[in-house]
């Protein structure tokens, strides 16, 4: 419970700070990152959260379909099939860890 309260406090702090910040400062993101990781930990979801974070970060580093020689419609198909498959895989893992499904 203390861990959840600490996580909520950090998340709330980051939220309040983000109201007044014109840009997403690193300090806010670090506080928020620690808070969300702690919250995920209370539900045993920390590794899945990190996997999602890595995937989202890769969007900015490795645009999976940014190849000029591929026609645009196929690039969209590539985004939906590859991105959809990876995310659905992660979603299935989340679902299997859901307390509702475990019961």
């Amino acid at each position, binding site marked *: 419970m203390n861990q959840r309260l600490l996580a909520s406090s950090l*998340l709330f702090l980051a*939220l309040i700070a983000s109201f007044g910040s014109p840009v997403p400062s690193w300090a806010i993101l670090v506080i928020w990152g620690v808070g969300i990781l702690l*919250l995920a930990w209370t539900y045993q979801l920390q590794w899945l959260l990190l996997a999602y974070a890595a995937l989202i970060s890769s*969007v900015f580093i490795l645009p999976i379909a940014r190849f000029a020689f591929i026609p*645009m419609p196929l*690039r969209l198909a590539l985004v939906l099939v590859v991105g959809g498959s990876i*995310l659905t895989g992660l979603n299935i893992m989340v*679902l299997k860890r859901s307390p509702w499904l475990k019961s």
Partner: protein
Amino acid sequence: MPVCCIVASVILVSIIALQYPLSSSFPIGGDAPYYIIVSKEILAGLSAPQTALHSILVSWYPLFNILFTTTALLPLSWADRFIWSMAAGHIVTALSLGWLLYRLSGWRAASAGIVFWSLTIVSITPHVESGTVAQLWSLAFFFLFLERWFSGSFYGTLSLFILTLLTHFLAGIVAVTAIICSVPLLMIASRQSNLLIAQKRIILLLKTLLALIGILGLYVMTKRFYIFSSLHHLYGTFDVRDLFYSHFGPLLLLAVVGVVYLAGRREVNGYRLSIILGTLTATSLLALNGQLGAGVLAGRFKSYFIGITVLLAAYAFPRLIRTLAPSRSVRILITVLMMTVLWVPLWHYNKPVYAFYESPSRYARLHPDEFEALQWLEKTDSKPLFIMATTTNRHTEWIPALTKHRFAPVTTNDPLFQMTDEKLSEYVRSRHYAYIVFFKHREGIYPSFTERPDLFPVVFENRGSIIFSAL
């Protein structure tokens, strides 16, 4: 308490939504006149149903066209009806999002969701301006579709899916993609015996729908591949990082908290969790397809992503506050303070945005001078005539929407701009043009018209427009 909170939220979102019609004159041409023209065609078709049916069948947004046509019952001008339908669209969308959240999580989340939607009205979604009103209304149907799907209503899901598709084809694409991304998860959830029979029937329905979509997709890929070649015209971008640099940034942070709460707590069952995760995946991929290298209508798809983000943020907000403050009065204080901090600056922020568009020196609105000329055209003759105007400005697009007349567009390369005197007069009359209109703020007047008042008398003039008669 619940009723008070919901009513207060609706008042807050309504105030922000009503800023648009109360601060704006008519939008510039483009899609706004198009919607009005289609509605006028539908109304004209009441005596000849085939015309009305044709207008509906060729439209990309048939359901919205029908809904907008019903505003003819209101004692307003078509342009006013259009602007008020934008505001109504935001309020209806907020209410349907609130209803979805109420069914998912109760009145606290519903109330938060309705207020949070007001943050998206200006500069977050593209629905502050005229052209996207059909898509805005499609969001309302999309949220209702999700609500019926959550609730396990077989016929409700099917009918709302069809209504969503008919309101805007993009909403249909999002709904289909959400189904595709949710079905694998639903199949896992359906192995649980505590799933309702109705929910299992819906999963069967979705599987059938997916099979049909698969067959249609194969047919298009093999026989109608040329359809895809036109997609490069639909290029659009959306960088999710832009949201961090806006007043929507805190909601993005809160939405992630919502995902963790949904996945970690027992409140939402596996069936609903599957739908939320599938819909989140679909909306994220479609909105970020530009960032991932494709770029098909990403700017338009972002509305659905923002809608789901608001849903998740509103789900998280009351839970976060509850964990922090066990005392009810402290929770109320925190909530009121936070909503004030979010809402009041937003209200102030919108004012200069609308003022910017309204400024007479800018080319972003149909200004009073041009509107006056169109009103004169509407009143001057009882039968429809051909009105000639150039395509060098967008005000001319309002001619068929605000008058009973037909717009005869000409480009500046038209041969008539090489002619003078009688030759010009013969040419104009051979084309049956009754009046020639120039909107002076955006174009010069062709001198051959002003030089021969005997052939082309000036019948109307103000600072922004001039009308010559060719009758």
